[in-house]
């Protein structure tokens, strides 16, 4: 357990969240995610057809008009399909204010080694109070569950 690597980050929206990682090359607008399933609908998006529900979402930044981001994230939360935490590289005003208001943990300025180590499906604990990430590689988890 102690061997799980930790990485520093900066907390923007405080809280604790954990889950399997879903990595996106593209910025995401929550309005273009189906609220009932958490599946990304936007055509051509890196995550099109994949679900963000219960995941730790890792993406470059946010996008979308002044209104739709908030409504999209709110609807995901009411359907219990929102990401448990979000990790971004670049803050964007609409995303940041929306996520703080909707009380989803959000961090940025993660140390570069995290991005080198992380892959889809790894488990991450986002501690947006203590400003650290704990990464458990999927391979490590598989070893652990074996008898």
């Amino acid at each position: 357990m102690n061997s799980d690597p930790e990485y520093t980050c900066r907390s923007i929206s405080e809280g604790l969240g954990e889950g399997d990682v879903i990595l996106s090359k593209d910025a995401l607008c929550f309005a273009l995610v189906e609220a009932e399933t958490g599946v990304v609908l936007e055509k051509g998006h890196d995550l099109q057809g994949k679900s963000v529900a219960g995941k730790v979402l890792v993406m470059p930044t946010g996008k979308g008009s002044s209104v739709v981001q908030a409504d999209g994230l709110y609807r995901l939360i009411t359907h219990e399909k929102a990401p448990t935490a979000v990790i971004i590289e670049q803050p964007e005003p609409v995303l940041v204010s929306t996520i703080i208001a909707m009380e989803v943990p959000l961090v940025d300025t993660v140390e570069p080694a995290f991005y080198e180590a992380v892959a889809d499906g790894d488990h991450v604990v986002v501690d947006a109070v203590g400003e650290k990430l704990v990464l458990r590689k999927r391979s490590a988890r598989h070893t652990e569950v074996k008898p």
Partner: protein
Amino acid sequence: MELTSVERDMLAGKHGEGSALAMKVQVGTGKAFYARRMVPITRAHVALSAQEGDVYWVTKLVDAGARCVISPTVNPSMDLKYVDEHVHSLAGEGRDRVAAANDAYRRIGATMTLSCTPELEKNVPAFGEVVAFSESSATPYVNSVLGARTNRESSISALCAAVTGRVPEYGLLLDENRRGEVLVEVEAKVEDDFDWSLLGWAFPMKYKGCEIPVFTGITERPTPEGFVQFGAELATSGAVAMYHIVGITPEAPTLDAALGGNAVKARVTITDADLDRIREEVCGQPGKIEFAMFGCPHLSIRQVAEIAAIADGRRFAVDAWVLTSSLTKELAERMGYLSIIRRAGGHIVADTCMDMPGCWDFAFNKSGVTESPKCAYYSQVYGQRYAVRPLAQAVEAALTGEVVK
């Protein structure tokens, strides 16, 4: 970020739970952008939408005791009574949300203008004024045409600013971030309002970065409506919150002033061929239409007058909806334009947005005409198809039932 004692008290809940919630969002946002302090605002505009997330947030704040220190103007939703009488009776949930949004915004102390062009009437900032405006088409106008200062606020953060009376100081509030970095050489002929729409759509198609563009090669000042449409399209096909036009906008008397010592990071040229390509991609083919939708953003009195002049003594062949503010509708009544448009069988609808779930269901899977590329883009989710034409041509199409070229 350094907070004053009043701001610290707000954050700690000494001014009530509602203002603490608002301050928490703003302090978090300020931290994200390395703001050093909060600064007071003198105006705000909130992009009310009556969508679920909007109703949730305004209700949460007002029920926690928040009241606006700076009363914001607000975006349109729907004139329920008019829509009931002339469009259709809106089903329960949508109807309840419109009523709930209006009630909560009234209680929190908003000024219920229900219009998306506050920059033209009722909430016009002056040069250098620090404000919080959250309508994406208003933001570039406020920064670029008026020289007032606002960041790209969300409906959430603009409401927080109205409640606390301040904003974190970062981004476009600071001199050094208002200078251009991308040089846009306009070789295309830009002569009327519609050309400005096309130019606004064209730039983000050619340049994806978020640096401030500086347009050169423009010799004639656009009309206020041209500026509104230019900003609306820049913020639809891209996310531009500020631009300069050399020799025309107030922070760009010269190219050097617009760049403010910045090196030119990229050069973009926009030619007639570029605008022709946008026309082809965005404006749709000629053909029969079944309805007409004008006013995204809301039309000004000059545009309503233009419609009235063309429609005078004639009849619309299809349902024609002219969206504007209640103030402009009142003025249109005084000027006789409302009577002319009504006699032609058309409607002026106040307080209402074309992007309003449930409002325009009759247009599902139908073809219409509009003057607005933004309208055509956002209504795709409602299954509406549009031909986009200059206002006069679009009105003519509504009178004959056909877009001819």
